[in-house]
C-alpha cells in the first residue's frame, strides 16, 4: 500500500491510529504496541504476503543474536557470522540476478535462472539491524524487549523507504508511557508535516514526471537530444527525484509523529549546498550517516593517510551507489560522486576559494549531470543525454531569436545550431510549463524546507541548530491560516492522485 493512495489515507491510517490510541487509553501498552507491529506487518504484506516470512525470520534471527551478544557471548566471530548471513540474504535477493546477468555479458556465458524478486525494503531493514548488532557487540545498546525491537524494525512509516532509523533514536521512544495517550499536539504536527510531504510527492514530483518520462524515453530510443532539451530533462528529473524522495521522507516523518515518534531528518535542502561534501550531508542523510559510521570509518576513514582516505571515499560511494540498485548505472552514479568528493577534497587542500554562487553552480551542475545514469535504464541512453548536455548533439534555439542574431544565424546554423524551438524534440514550450518550472525552482532554491518551516515544534530528531535558518521569516504555527492552508494542500494533493504512481525509491 502506498502512502499516496486512497486506501492508505482513508482506510488504513485512520483504523491504525484509532486502534492504537483506543487500546493505549486503557493502559494496555503492550497490546497497543502489538497492534502497531501487526498493522505494520499487514502494511508490509499488502504487496506480497510471501515476503512476510523474510522480515519475520530476519527479526527473530537478529534479535536472538543481539541478545546473545549483549548477555553471554562477546564473540567477534558470532558478530561476523551474523553480519555475513544478513549480507548474504541481501546479496542473494538483491544482487544475484545482477551477478548472473553481468557474468553472462563479461564471460559470454548463457546462464538462465528463475528471476529472484526483490523483497520490499530488504536494504533498509538489513542495514538497520546490522547497525544494531555492531552496536550491541560494542556494548552501546541497552537491553530491549522483543516487542520494542519488532516495532523498531517494522514501524510502518519508516519501513519501506526510510529514513534509516537508528536503534538509539527509536527504542527509547517506544519505551515511553506517554506514547500511548492521544496527544493532539503530535497529531496536528504530524498531519501538517505529512501534508507538506504529500503535496511534494503528489503535486510537485508527479506533476513533473510526465516530461521526464517522455524525454528520457526519447533519449533511450536513440533520439539525440540537443543541449537545452538534455539539460531540461536532467534538471526536471533532479526536481522530480528531490520532491519525490524528500516528500516521501516528510510523509514518513509526519506519520510517525502522529504516533508520537520523532524520526531523524533525511533531507536538508541538498540542492542549496555550496559543495559536494555538504550536498552529501544534506541528501538522504540517514543513508550517508550509515555509510559513514558502518563502512567509511571501519574501512579506515581518514585515519590511514590521504591516499587511503580517497580510496575509502570512492569505495564507500560506489557501494552506496550499488545499495540503490543492482545495476551498473548505479555503480557509475556512485563512482561519479566518489570522484566529485575526491576532487573537492583535493581542492580544499589547495585552499582556493571560489565565490559562493560559482561553487553552488558547479555543485548543482555536477549533481544534475550525475543523475542521468541514475534515471536512464540503459548505457546508450545515458551517453546520449550526456552528449546532449555537452553540446555534442547540437543546439536548438527558439525561432524568434533569429531576429536578434544580426546575421550570425547562418554561421550558427553551419555550427550545429538550429532555430526550431528550444525543446522542439520533446514538445512545444507552453507558458504553464515555464511557470511550473519557475515554481519548482523557487521552492527548491529559495524557500525554507519542511523542518525549517516546522522548526518551532521539533519536527525531527536532530537539534534545531542543525537545520535552522536565521534569516527565515515563514514558520508553521497552529493558527487558523495554517489550518486552512494545510487542509487545502491536503485536498489538492488527494485530488491529484487520479493516477497512483509508485515512489521512485521503492525499487531500492
Amino acid at each position, binding site marked *: 500500500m502506498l502512502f499516496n493512495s486512497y486506501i492508505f489515507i482513508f482506510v488504513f491510517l485512520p483504523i491504525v491510529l484509532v486502534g492504537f490510541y483506543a487500546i493505549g487509553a486503557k493502559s494496555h501498552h503492550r497490546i497497543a504496541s502489538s497492534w502497531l507491529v501487526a498493522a505494520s506487518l499487514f502494511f508490509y504484506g499488502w504487496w506480497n504476503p510471501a515476503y512476510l516470512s523474510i522480515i519475520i525470520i530476519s527479526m527473530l534471527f537478529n534479535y536472538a543474536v543481539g541478545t546473545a551478544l549483549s548477555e553471554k557471548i562477546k564473540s567477534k566471530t558470532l558478530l561476523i557470522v551474523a553480519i555475513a548471513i544478513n549480507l548474504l540474504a541481501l546479496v542473494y535477493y538483491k544482487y544475484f540476478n545482477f551477478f548472473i546477468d553481468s557474468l553472462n555479458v563479461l564471460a559470454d556465458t548463457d546462464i538462465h535462472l528463475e528471476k529472484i524478486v526483490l523483497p520490499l525494503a530488504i536494504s533498509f531493514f538489513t542495514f538497520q539491524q546490522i547497525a544494531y548488532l555492531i552496536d550491541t557487540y560494542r556494548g552501546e545498546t541497552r537491553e530491549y524487549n522483543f516487542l520494542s525491537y519488532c516495532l523498531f524494525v517494522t514501524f510502518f512509516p519508516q519501513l519501506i523507504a526510510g529514513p534509516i532509523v537508528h536503534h538509539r533514536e527509536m527504542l527509547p521512544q517506544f519505551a515511553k508511557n506517554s506514547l500511548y495517550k492521544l496527544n*493532539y499536539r503530535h497529531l496536528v504536527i504530524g498531519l501538517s508535516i505529512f501534508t507538506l510531504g504529500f503535496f511534494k510527492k503528489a503535486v510537485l514530483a508527479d506533476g513533473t514526471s510526465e516530461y521526464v518520462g517522455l524525454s528520457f524515453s526519447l533519449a533511450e530510443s*536513440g533520439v539525440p537530444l540537443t543541449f537545452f532539451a538534455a539539460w531540461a530533462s536532467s534538471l526536471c528529473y533532479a526536481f522530480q527525484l528531490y520532491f519525490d524522495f524528500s516528500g516521501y521522507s516528510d510523509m514518513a516523518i509526519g506519520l510517525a509523529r502522529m504516533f508520537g515518534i520523532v524520526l531523524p531528518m533525511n533531507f536538508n535542502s541538498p540542492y542549496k549546498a555550496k559543495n559536494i561534501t555538504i550536498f552529501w550531508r544534506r541528501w538522504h542523510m540517514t543513508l550517508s550517516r550509515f555509510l559513514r559510521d558502518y563502512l567509511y570509518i571501519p574501512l579506515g576513514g581518514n585515519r590511514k593517510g590521504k591516499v587511503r582516505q580517497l580510496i575509502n571515499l570512492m569505495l564507500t560511494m560506489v557501494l552506496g551507489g550499488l545499495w540503490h540498485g543492482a545495476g551498473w548505472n548505479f555503480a557509475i552514479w556512485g563512482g561519479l560522486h566518489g570522484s566529485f568528493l575526491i576532487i573537492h577534497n583535493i581542492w580544499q587542500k589547495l585552499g582556493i576559494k571560489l565565490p559562493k554562487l560559482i561553487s553552488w553552480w558547479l555543485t548543482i551542475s555536477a549533481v544534475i549531470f550525475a543523475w542521468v545514469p541514475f534515471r536512464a535504464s540503459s548505457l546508450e541512453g545515458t551517453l546520449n543525454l550526456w552528449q546532449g548536455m555537452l553540446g555534442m548533439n547540437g543546439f536548438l534555439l527558439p525561432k524568434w531569436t533569429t531576429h536578434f542574431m544580426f546575421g550570425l544565424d547562418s554561421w550558427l546554423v553551419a555550427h550545429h545550431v538550429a532555430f526550431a524551438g528550444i525543446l522542439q524534440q520533446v514538445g512545444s514550450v507552453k507558458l504553464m510549463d515555464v511557470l511550473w518550472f519557475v515554481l519548482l525552482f523557487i521552492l527548491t532554491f529559495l524557500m525554507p524546507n519542511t523542518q525549517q518551516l516546522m522548526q518551532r515544534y521539533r519536527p525531527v530528531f536532530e537539534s534545531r541548530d542543525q537545520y535552522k535558518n536565521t534569516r527565515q521569516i515563514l514558520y508553521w504555527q497552529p*493558527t*487558523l491560516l495554517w489550518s*486552512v492552508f494545510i*487542509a487545502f494542500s491536503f*485536498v489538492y494533493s488527494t485530488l491529484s*492522485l487520479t493516477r497512483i504512481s509508485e515512489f521512485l525509491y521503492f525499487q531500492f
Partner: protein
Amino acid sequence: MNHIFVAYSRRFFIISTLLFGLSAVFCYVVDPFSVYGRVYFKVGKVVNSPAFSSQIQMGKAIGIKQYKPDTLILGSSRTDSGFSAKITQEFLPDNKVYNGAYPGMTIYEVLRYFQHANASTSLKQVFIGLDFFQFHGSHRPNKGFSEERLAVDFNNTPSENNLNDLQSTLFSGGALFYSIKALTGLNKWKKVYLPNGFKTKGYGEGWIDTFSNSEEKYVHRVYTTPNFTFVSFDKKFTTFDYFRKIIQLAYDQGIVVNFFISPSHARQWELIKQLGLWNKWEHWKREMLAITEQESRAYQKSPFLIYDFSTYNKYSTEAVPRATDTPMTWYADSSHYSQALGDIIFNNMINGVENNFGQILKTETVGAHIKAIRQGREQYILEHPQDAADIKSLVATRL
C-alpha cells in the same frame, strides 16, 4: 495549549471534508467528461462535452455501455476521425452504430474494447480499421487505457471495477479543472464528439506542413521506438495473437467482423519503405489473411473479409500542396484521411468495391495484389520525386 491543537485539527477535518464534498458534487453536476449523462449543444446538435476527448478512453468505454450499440467501429485516430455520423444513416440505417475508435488504439486495445462491448451489449457486427503501427508490439496500451474499467478481463471473465473512474471523474484535480473550465466556458471545442462516439469533423485540410509534422512523429516515435516488432510488450504474445483472438471471439458470439486497412496517403507508405519496414508491412497483410483463413477453417464458417485500401490510387496519390491556397480533398496529413474519403470506404464495404478501391484480400490473389502495390510505388516516386525526396531526407535524420 492543547486546545489550540484540538481546534486546528477540527478545522482541518471540517474544511477538508467540505472541500471534498463540494468538489465531488460540483464535478457530478457539471460532468465535464459526459460520463454521467450530461450533454451539451453545439452547432445545433446534441454533443458530448468539450473535454470528452481528454479522457476519450474512459468516455468511449462508458459510452459503449450506455449507448448499447449493435454495430461497433474500432480502430486508431484514422478510424476515429475518418467517419462522420452520416454513414450510419446512409449505409447502416437499421443499425445502432457506435464509433469506439480513439487515437493510438493498438490492436491489443481493439481486442479489449471488442471484448468489453461484447460483454456490455448485444453486438451484430463490427468494423475494425487496421493500421500497421497498431501491430508494433513495443507500444504499450495508451496512457488513458485502463483494464479495470472494462467489463471483462483478457480471458473474458467479468472483472469490471469502476472505482478508479469514480475517483478520476469526481475526486480528481483533472475533473475539477475541467469542470471549472466547462462552467466558465473556457473549454475549447477542439474535437467535438456526438453521443454515438462519432467526431463532427475530421482533422482539416492537409498541406505540406501538416504532412511533415505528422511524418516526424512516425519516423521518430510511432514506427521506431524501439525497432518495429510483432512481439507484444508483455513478451507472451505476438500482436497477431490479439488479432486472432478478435476473430475467435466473433465466431464464438456470432458477430460479423469487417476488417479494413486504412487508406493513408502514399507518403505514409513511402515512410514505411524508407524506414526499411516494407517487407514487414507486406508480411503483416499476408499474416492477417492467413489467420482469417485458418480460423474460418477451424470454425467451418466463411472467413471474415479484409478490405485493403492501402494501395496507390487516385486518392492516396493526391498531390500535397506546398502552400495552403489549394486545399486537399482527401487528406489532413499522410496518416489521416478526410471524412469524404471515409464515406467512400463505407460505400465500398457495404455496396461493393468500386474502382478497385478497397480490394478484398484473398489467398489466391494476394501475391498479385502485393506486386501491384510495389509497382504502384515505383510509379508514385517517378511522378512525385519531391515527395519521395522529402521522406528520404526525413528518414536520414534518424539514421
